[in-house]
């Protein structure tokens, strides 16, 4: 894949969020709509294109956990707000090469995580579990060895302790397991077809109208 080869040729082993989501999208994984901008004019074009509310994020592979670096502004609803956020984030990114990412704001209360790790004994292994800020708190994730099929993916959803999050809880619609299992199957496929990918992280996957959308993602390549 071009994106992967480009990163490797630049001696980069962590893809930016923007690049990682391009890889996911190529495999049919739904990702939030987003545009990379480097100027105020481009920012305004992007905002008009995507439509409020938006999220504005710093986009550089050095920032693996962006929220910890205060590089995310969510639920931006006005142009003035967007401009302020753009400059603020740019200021925090002095000395790094990355741009600023304007993203559609995915509305949803439930956050899941999915990913891939290339295990030394079992090879590419797909992860699924509770995402967002609860990822490390609940540690509620399960693995399957790629390639996985639909029934493996459905089994993963049954195996997490917090599986009720996928049901019609508190007035929310039930999660479309078909769509979510498809997403997990595709992650396995990426692992099987791209030897140079070492890790994939999609966190969070936000459930919006019952469907999972990759809102943040990273990909780590094998550093030989």
């Amino acid at each position, binding site marked *: 894949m071009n994106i992967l080869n480009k990163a490797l040729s630049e001696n980069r082993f*962590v893809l930016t969020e923007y690049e990682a989501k391009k890889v996911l999208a190529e495999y049919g994984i739904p990702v939030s709509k987003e545009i990379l901008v480097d100027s105020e004019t481009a920012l305004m074009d992007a905002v008009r294109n995507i439509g409020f509310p938006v999220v504005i994020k710093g986009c550089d592979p050095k920032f*693996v956990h962006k929220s910890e670096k205060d590089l995310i502004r969510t639920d931006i609803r006005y142009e003035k707000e967007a401009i302020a956020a753009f400059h603020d984030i740019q200021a925090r990114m002095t000395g790094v090469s990355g741009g600023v990412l304007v993203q559609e704001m995915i509305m949803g209360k439930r956050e899941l*995580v999915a*990913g*891939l*790790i290339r*295990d030394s*004994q*079992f*090879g590419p*292994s797909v*992860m699924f*579990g509770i995402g967002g800020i609860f*990822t*490390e708190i609940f*540690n509620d*994730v*399960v*693995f*399957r*060895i790629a390639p*996985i099929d639909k*029934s*493996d993916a459905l*089994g*993963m959803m049954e*195996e997490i302790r917090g599986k009720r999050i996928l049901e019609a809880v508190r007035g929310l619609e039930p999660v479309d397991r078909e769509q979510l299992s498809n997403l997990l199957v595709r992650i396995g496929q990426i692992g099987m077809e791209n030897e140079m990918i070492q*890790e*994939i*992280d999609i*966190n969070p996957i936000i459930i919006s109208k019952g469907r999972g959308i990759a809102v943040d993602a*990273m990909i*780590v390549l094998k550093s030989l």
Partner: protein
Amino acid sequence: MMRKFFYPSSIAVFGVKDNPKNLAKNIIANCDKMKFKGNIFPVGRSTGKVSGRTIITDPHALAKDIDLAVILVPADMVAETLEICGQKGIRYAIVSSGGFREFSKNENTAEKNVVAIAKQYGIRFIGPNCIGVICTNSGLCTPFSPLQPKNFKKGNVSLVCQSGGVSIQIAYHFSEEHLGFSKIISIGNKLDLDETDYLSYLLEDQETSQIHFYLESIDHGRKLMQLARETEKPIIVYKSNIGSTSSEVARSHTAALSSDDRIINGAFRQTGIIRAESIHDMTVCAKALQLKPLTGDQLVVISLSGGFSVILGDACENYGFSCPQLPPELISDIESFRRGGVIQMSNPMDFGDVHNYEGLIFTLEKCLALDFIDGMVLSLMYDPDMARLFGTEDEAYNTILEFLSKISQRFNKPIALSFFAERRYIDAFKKSNVFPVFNDPVESVRALRKNRDYWKVKKKYS
């Protein structure tokens, strides 16, 4: 190709000394105690006799047609011993000696030499750092610690263990649970043959119907999965050494959250490998997979005790089973067998008010015949007074278990059976070995979970 590890016509034991402290001589004593029929040649540096056999001090004087060498000499002398084996045409060896990578992580020349010599002569070996093989049919018993092999029970479970001590305890515990075994292989450091080699052999072995592993590491995960998917024989793994190995410098959540253990769990679930949590749990798995396949999650629970029917109801819920309502006509038919008419029948069913076998037999058959019931949990009471109904006590054990075995066959549904009785009577039921008996009611439900998990995956790949 591995048959000679279990059925050698003759063996040479290296490292023997006519001295009370010598360990290698125990290998010969153990084989004798287990009535190994082949010739055994003790080889050592000084003259003497062990177990009535003269120690051979010049290995070049060894016979030409020896199948297997068992080597217990210091690590740095293993390579030259293997070389002698090679020259003598011995192509199979058990290297029991320790002192290789498990002892020193540094550059290990002894290890390299062993591998090189084995390669040069085409010798395949088990170990090093192991106790080798126990084969109940041939009587080969190569552990170097004194054992009581006459208590080992013959059967069709074979076990592969990455620890000598665990191997021995498994041999005792399986035998005490009246579960016979065919072969136990202590595989040590896996320097030549590894778990997938042993598995490949045991999958083809006519004497083996289930394969159990005790492993501290897995070297060829994908190969193990592939073999597990393809076979009809259940594979049970007790995996220890599960401390988190995830990298502290992990860049992604996925890497931080991954551990050997979680990935192994996933791999096992995908391929129907059943995970055991202890040596005893291995015996529970062994019995669980002797039962008929459980093809759904709906159970009927019958106990001769109200208390145990409540406990079993909880256990079913904990292990993900449901106990659906039974048809009212059936309930009223069953209730007609009550003596006092003081207990309401439902599912789980308190059978404490029914005191005749006709009622029990009627209920078991009618419940198993229900389309929506996938299996049964049965907790019976036993007292020797009951044996009078059957003649002798032994007849009682056999008659009860044979009956349950037959109806389980007839309806093709599993019955998870336990007794509340004095331990010695429970043991007598287990010993009769006609039908699996679990040690307690909750254990019987756990067994059904393992059975169900196994068949869920097997049906997918069949």
